[in-house]
């Protein structure tokens, strides 16, 4: 990480216990916000899953929560109009990492900032077409049957390709028959519908591709914006460094 580390411990206190949890554009953010948030966590249903406060891992939790709050503060300065872009899907959360994901999930200001910062992101149409050309697949012919086994109740079957039908049924379907027997049992069926296959259609597929590419591009833009803003505008204090900062004493490589 690139945050500048300055010493801002309060009088007589250890690192990270001063009155300031960090600086945004040089403005101190009061520490009590962090304490309240931690207190809430310690009272929550997840309390049993939290590390002992005095431990190295406990200090890492404090650092982590401090980063979440600073991320929220940073986004709040945009004063962006409240927009809810919807919850984060799990893959997006993995991409963001836990601090940004937590801030996004927990703070309307972060979601509003996301909407504002990424509102202008577009995906070039040639990207959409490239994706489509690379990954579009033709749809095969598919059958919808009614089927029953050994005289039991009728069941819907399909849509399926003929490949997905037991060989005896497939052969019967192809011959226009309605009964066949094999080791599975005695099959009876009627063909309800044949859904013809189709070549892929860019017009049909493009909206979903465009949306997926745009969502990914917006996530990346937001992540980059946050990284840059944090580097330029936040000043961290000793004891409340980024938990992943290898220079702080509680960051032990675990493997």
């Amino acid at each position: 990480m690139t945050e500048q580390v300055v010493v801002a411990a309060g009088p007589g206190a250890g690192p990270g216990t001063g009155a300031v949890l960090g600086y945004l554009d040089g403005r101190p953010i009061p520490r009590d916000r962090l304490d309240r948030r931690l207190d809430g966590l310690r009272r929550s249903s997840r309390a049993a899953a939290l590390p002992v406060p005095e431990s190295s891992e406990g200090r890492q939790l404090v650092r982590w929560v401090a980063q979440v709050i600073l991320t929220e503060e940073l986004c709040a300065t945009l004063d962006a109009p409240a927009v809810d872009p919807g919850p984060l899907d799990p893959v997006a959360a993995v991409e963001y990492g836990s601090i940004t994901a937590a801030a996004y999930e927990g703070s309307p200001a972060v979601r509003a900032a996301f909407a504002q910062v990424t509102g202008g992101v577009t995906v070039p149409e040639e990207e959409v077409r490239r994706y489509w050309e690379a990954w579009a697949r033709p749809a095969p012919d598919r059958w919808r049957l009614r089927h029953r086994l050994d005289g039991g109740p009728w069941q819907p079957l399909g849509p399926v390709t003929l490949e997905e039908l037991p060989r005896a049924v497939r052969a019967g379907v192809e011959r226009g028959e309605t009964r066949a027997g094999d080791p599975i049992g005695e099959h009876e069926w009627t063909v309800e519908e044949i859904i013809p296959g189709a070549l892929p259609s860019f017009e049909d597929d493009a909206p979903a591709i465009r949306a997926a590419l745009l969502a990914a591009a917006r996530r990346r833009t937001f992540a980059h914006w946050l990284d840059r803003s944090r580097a330029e505008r936040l000043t961290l204090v000793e004891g409340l460094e980024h938990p992943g900062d290898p220079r702080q004493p509680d960051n032990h490589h675990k493997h």
Partner: protein
Amino acid sequence: MQITAAESTDLFVGTEEAPRQVLRVTIVRDTTESTILTVTGEATGGAEIPAGAGEVVVEVGLDTDRAVDQPGLAGTDAAAGSAPENVGSASANAGPSEPAGSAPGTTAHPSRPRPTRRITITAGTASLDTTFTLEEPGYTMHLISHFHYDPVWWNTQAAYTSPWEWLSGDASTRPLWERNAFRLVDTHIDLALRDPDYRFVLAEIDYLKPYFDVHPERKEDLRRLLREGRVELMGGTYNEPSTNLTGAETTIRNIVYGIGYQRGILHGDPQTAWQLDVFGHDPQFPGYLADAGLTGSAWARGPFHQWGPIQKNFRDAKGDATVMQFPSEFEWISPSGLGVLTHYMPNHYSAGWWMDSSATLEEAEQAVFQLYRNLKPVAATKHILLPVGTDYTPPNKWVTAIHRSWAEKYVWPRFRCAIPRDFLDGVRSQIGRPAPQTRDMNPVYTGKDVSYIDTKQAQRAGEVAVTDAEKLATIASLHGLGRYPEAAIDKVWRQLAYGAHHDAITGSESDQVYIDLLAGWREAFDLASDVRDRALDALTGQIALDGESVVVANTLGFDRTGLVRVRTDKTIRGVRAVRDRGTLVFRAADVPALGWTTFSLVEGTAGGWSAAAGHTIGNAALTVTADPARGGALSSILAGGRELLQAGEVGNELRLYAEYPAHPDFGEGPWHLVPNGKVVSSAAGAGTVRKETSDLGERLISTGVVDGLAYEQTVTLWHGSDQLECSTRVLDYAGVDKLLRVKFPIDLPGALPISEVASAVVGRGYALPDVDVAEAPWTLDNPANTWFGLGSTARVALSDGTSRALGVAEVVVPDLASAPDARDLVVALARVGVTATTSSADWSRYGWLDVDSNLPDFRIVLGGPDTNELAREILGDTDPGEHPWVWVPAAKPLTEVWQPNADLRDARALPALIVLRDLPALVTDVADATITAPTLGANTEPLTDGTVALLTYGLPGFAVDPTGALHLSLMRSCTGWPSGVWIDPPRRTAPDGLSFQMQHWTHEFTYALVAGDGDWRASTLPSRGQEHSTPLLPRVLGAQPGTFPATHSFLRVEPQREVLLSALKPTGNPIAAGSGAGVDPARGVTVRLAESTGLGRTARLDGFALDSLQVADLLESPSGPAGSLDLAGSTVVTYVGTPVGAVAGGEVLGAVSEIVPAYSRYWLHNRGPAPIGYAPVTVTATPGILRTAGEPFEVEVVLASQVQDTAVEGLATLRVPEGWSVSPAQRVYRLPADGHTRFTATVTPGACPDGLYFVAAGIDGSEDVVTVAVGDLPGVLPTPIENLPEDWTAAQGTTSVTSRDTGLAVAALSTSLVVRPGGTGTLGVTLTNTTRDEIHGEVHLVSPWGTWELFPAVVSGFGVGPGETRVVEFAVSVPADFEPGHAWAMAKVLWFGRCQYAPTVKVEVVV
């Protein structure tokens, strides 16, 4: 205008054909107009100084004559340090295919001067005369995106593998873990689909199979990316196993199953073992890879301490890769002589990941450029690998942007997204013969050898049981006595492979994961023992016996004599025997190889053990005395009249080392040994010693207490044996952060440490066990397979009549370019057990403990003083004479310089063999493990020609200190994280409330001391190690007719004890590759042999008729006629042949399925690999949980087949609660080979009360279950996920003492059980179903190794109706001869994707 600085860089602009090297000029502008900067002189160019004020840096591409400046100094660039002026080396002749480069593959040391050019820089009125340092163009750094995945570590298999909807914010049924493998595979594939520049790797089977079972459509994406060269399947192994802690066959099967899945089922082309995080490597591993057809390996831990030469290990980071003695690309060669091109990651496997946090692209680029500078000095060629990823990471944010933006700026170096194959192909294109390295890539993490010691014993038990089972089932099957149990054996090997993971058998895991893994080892052992017993019963049932008999079977390839224990009240006719606590013990002599002999049982009572006076016992070979005043330790061990112990010292002494909770400098937990230097010895206090004698031998039983640890040590001398059999029982123990070792201070001057690792014997360095790691962090404890000791694996016989042992070599060539010339020598040395680092005189010396993970004990210097500067330094003015090589003793004996924080780099710190000429003759001379040489000085460390070794059972950790003391690590109580971590609440502990990692229960450790004249070969120690680990198998049988004789051998491998039988099995592993073809020993049999002298032997298979015997690779594909079975030293060779006269018939000799229906998402049950048969066809239903107020809902079902050679047809059914309906309720299907199908079922709940219900989708033998919540169910349904940090918070586990309602309440019938030897009892769990529907599942009773016999059956199915309570019981049965002690057991309940753990039960066996 001022020119304030001019800096040569190794950046190039222009074109590949005409690259221009960049000069970076700093200018303080005196005008705001743009100006022209020109460079003239021996290099020329110009650039525009941009408009603006103040200081600016301008990059100028320079044209220059790049002709050879320094002929003879070929070489790729060898840059070092941070100052660009110091970077680079000579440019040489430009080859046609290489851009203005030299012949790569040879590296010159960075301290060599580089060519320069005089230039004049002019800008406006300013001008500067300076020099410009030439650099090499043509470098490519391959950015390899990856994520490292551990299926088990602090978190559970379920949480690491897949997301599940039964996620709860309070972790009550599943921990929250977003970065699971499914989501990671998705993020990487998705990015590759979106971004054509993205490339990445996938690796381990433990996530690949689950992922593609659930997402079979994604195989098409994967294969397309494979075809495009954008993803590579890495590994060719099942996982990243700790192969230095397991038997060789376990490693071989790991490769078989990895390649089988990746190639056979996923259609990839694995070529490179990807062993990123493995804590040291078995020296034979590269040979196995080569023999399996793999061509490379890449990994990050081995030659240097944990994080490599650049990062911080202890105190300050070195920050300099050139402390390595050889380039990062080399040929890693095993003692068998086979090797693979290997890349060592000098900056660890996470090197390139951290630029992910860069705020800007420019910053990320600079971070990558700095990494390039760090890695380049040790790159063997102009291809560099940068791993971009770390544990469980999504794609790096910047990696493809760098790929694009850097290429726009510079022509060299290239930074490009790539797969490892691109990198290795590049290396191969530039390197003819890589530097040969046979170096031992150990010990790296010393704690791994002893943490959770019971799991290492369990692994050994499983390995022995399954190799026995394979042999016996093969033989039985060939005689028509049953069909080969392929599926059961397949599951056993997979469990062993799973458990061999570097966070499993290493003891690095959390407590909950330990419980899960123990269940797996037990399953492996039970399945294997079942096959072994069925096969042996079938075979011995055909022996013609005319009266009640004991048939004693031997599963090893040589005839042997050993002790047998039979639970009978009779005795043996004509054979001395003893009754010990109701069990008959006798010595079975000359049991034929892979066969049996028979003893007649007769009425009568053998004598027992009687108390005798004195503290000395003896037999023909040994006399041993214990000293009660010194804790009952041994004050004398006489072998043939020679005292083995050092004067004044005691043997079999227990030593309890105090440890830090975590390393005081670099933190971290159970994988480090962290002694603080304080040791308490059992010999410091008094103990009691009892002597007992019997017809069979004599024994001493010592008891005492050391530092609160109560022990009982029995040493036994059996008549007719030349081993001292030792058993140390830890009766009770409450210490924390303690390490227990047993010590034998041996008086064998001049001998060096040796050990077996998997199937090789190698010299090992001294260890330094008695240190404070805050001062001396590297103790050098090493792992061994079945034995270690003191002796010599090779020696130099000197002209003065003395010898000096040779253990570990540094082979020093004049310069790295000539390193390949040393290959024949280092291979010859490795074959006889001397591993070597090939280094060069002008590069770093091997021998500095501050960076090296092991040290050499002698040097071989190739070239005399005229060609090798180290030879010059060693010889000084001394005339080496006319002999082709000479020995120069060291300034001081090795034991004086090999001390904590040793630095042996000085030229005279180690003795050296200086090879003046005729290297081929030396290679020939090495082959008999003795080099003959004149010595230039007195040999101050003459070798005593003897061997003393400890044979061990599942106790890999050893240390031989410089005084010659053998230390065997027994056990450890380590509180370092993640000890004690429990993930799914409520937290469970051992009965005393502490972590299971404390091992606070009764343990028994067995080992045997062997002493002999000559080296380890003379004592055939590998065969004795096999004997010690592989018990003879007795069967009591009545009179019966039969066709087999009473004494019989099916297969004897000659020369006995020198070529060992590693495996006998049916040829092929079809399940591994997704084939339904099945195996049949009648069609083909595989025999794997291990040459166990290092000298080479010609083998013979006696008694086993095989037609058309062929040599095969490790995957059992034949490659040509076997001819005479010539095995070079230390080779492991596989043969296949067709048995003659095979007969078919009988039942399958083992389990064919587990409890059915098996839960298809087996990983959610934390139970290791897929169910028996490897789940070739799977069913999964989504979502895993849903809510309804009563309205209909849809369930999506996917059926997937990994069967590659046939289509599968069948019937899928959907089961819904009574009164509900589902459409379709059944569905016929056909899955083409490798195919899948997907369908949706609509479920309509009937009128029903609120509560939990279950919808099951099933196919033949397995099912998946959807949990349906009808109504609002606070307290039952998962609470919302709150975002919390993943690693550091989740990794602490839970402290909760309660669990939330899951729908099934689990309680133990009791939490303690006291039983007597010969007694019985019951353990049980109460299961109360609070849902509205039936629950079924399995209960596994988990208990530590050593207690398994108490619980004969540990897996039970259960079904419990809504509102019902059921008790699941497990019988407890204590054998009459079971030693008193205490341990524990815990029931683990698996159902519908949940795991619940019942309270721990303390189990005591009392007399």
